[in-house]
C-alpha cells in the first residue's frame, strides 16, 4: 500500500486527511501513482497535473525519501520504500506568501 501525503487544499477538495492510501498495480511509477490517485479521488483531476498533458502543475513539488522527484521522468520506478509503504510520497505546494 502506497501512502500519499496531500497538501491542505487538496485534502479539503478530496475530503480526506493528510495521508491517503493507494493500491497501484504493476511496477509503480509517479505516473501510475497519480493516475490511481485521480481515479480514487476524481475531484483531484487537473489539480496536481494538467488534465490533458499530465504535466505537473508548476507550483507543486513531489518529494519522497528526502529526494525531489518533481523533475524526474514520471515513468521511472518509484523508490522502493515508497512502494512498500515505509516512506510516503509527498505532494507539496511551493512555499509562497508572507
Amino acid at each position, binding site marked *: 500500500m502506497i501512502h500519499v501525503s496531500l*497538501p*491542505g*487544499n*487538496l485534502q*479539503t*477538495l478530496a475530503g480526506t486527511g493528510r495521508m491517503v492510501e493507494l493500491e497501484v498495480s504493476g511496477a509503480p511509477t509517479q505516473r501510475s501513482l497519480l493516475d490511481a490517485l485521480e481515479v480514487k479521488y*476524481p*475531484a483531484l*483531476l*487537473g*489539480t*496536481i497535473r*494538467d*488534465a*490533458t498533458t499530465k504535466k505537473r*502543475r508548476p*507550483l*507543486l513539488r513531489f518529494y519522497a525519501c528526502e529526494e525531489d522527484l518533481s523533475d524526474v521522468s514520471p515513468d521511472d520506478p518509484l523508490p522502493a520504500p515508497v512502494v512498500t509503504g515505509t516512506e510516503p510520497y509527498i505532494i507539496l*505546494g*511551493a512555499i*509562497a506568501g508572507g
Partner: protein
Amino acid sequence: MSSVRVLVGTRKGAFVLSSDESRREWKVDGPHFAGWEIYHVKGSPVDPDRLYASQSSSWFGQVMHRSEDGGKTWETVGNQFQYEGTPGPHKWYDGSPHPYEFKRVWHLEPSLDDADTVYAGVEDASLFISKDAGASWSELPGLRTHKTSTDWAPGAGGLCLHTIIIDPSNHDRIYAAISSAGAFRSDDAGQTWRPINRGLRSEYIPDPDAETGHCVHRIAMHPSQPNVLYMQKHWDVLRTDDAGESWHEISGNLPTDFGFVIDVHAQDPKTVYVLPITSDQYHVVPDGKLRVYRSKSGGDEWEALTKGLPQKDCYVNVLRDAMSVDGLDPCGVYFGTTGGQVYGSANSGDSWEPIVRDLPAVLSVEAQTLP
C-alpha cells in the same frame, strides 16, 4: 415569507449569508472550500437552490462545484476548459503575440430558463457553456476568435471575461465584457459577436475611441429595460439606451469616476449604484470614506450614501463582482470589500449595516431572493 441569501466569494473560501425579509438578523455559514480563492458563486434563477461556484488557486488550478441545496452541501463538477482548436495569440504585456491560455473562471451566469445550463467567463478571455449542470464545458469560440482578439492585451488583472448578461426578453442576446478589450454583444446565443464600444473614450490607449481596447470593469442591466445598460469603465460611468449601439457618459458629479462595481435597483430601472475608487493608481475609496453613490435619474446626478458606512480611516477597494441587489421591496443592496466587510442596506441604500466584518478579502457578492 420571503428570505434573502447572499453568496460571498473571498480569497480564502465562500460564505453564505442568510436572513428573512426584514434583513435585520443574519446567519453566516462558511467558510466553504476553505483556503481556495472563490471568484464567483451564483444561483440559478430557475432553481435558486442550484448554485455554481468557481474555485481557483495558483497552485492547484481551476475547480468547479455545484450545490443542490442552496450551499449546504457541494459536489465537484467538471473543471476542464479547453479552447476549441489551437488557440491563436493575443497581445502580451510587451506587445508580442502570446497564445490564449486558460487560467481561471471569473464569472458564472446561469441560464434564465434552464437550471442545467450555465455560462462561464474565463481568463484568458473566452466564453464557455455547460448544458449538463457543470459536468462538462464547451467553448463558444466566436468571441475569442473575433477579428479584433489578436489585438487584445491583458490589463493588470489579466485578460478576463468578467461580465455576462442575458437579455431577459430575448435569450439569444448576450452581453459580455472583457478587461482591456471592451464590451461585446451576441444576437445569436453566443455564436457570433461584435464590439459595442461606440461612445467610450479611454485616454490610456493610443486611439482613445478605438473599436476595442477599452477597460470595461462592469456592466449592469435592469430586466424591465433590457436595452438600457450601465457601465463602470476603468474611468467613466456610462449608459446606453440602445443595447450598446452608442454610449454616453453619466459620471456627472461623482467625486471620481474610477471604480469597479455598478448595479441597478431591483424595482426602479433608473436608480443606479456605483462605488467610486480614488484612481487607477490608488485602488481605495477616496478620502478614507466608504461611500456608495446613487443616481435616481439614470446617472449624471449622484448622491452620496454614507449612513452606517465608515467615514474616516477607511482604505478598502470593492471589486467588480462584489455588489448585488435583492428583489425585495424596498430593495436590498449589498457589497463586499477587500477588507473583508460585507455591508447590506435594506432600504435601497439610505442606510447600511455590516452583515459581517472580518472575512477574507471579498471577490464577489450575489444576492438571491427566495420565496
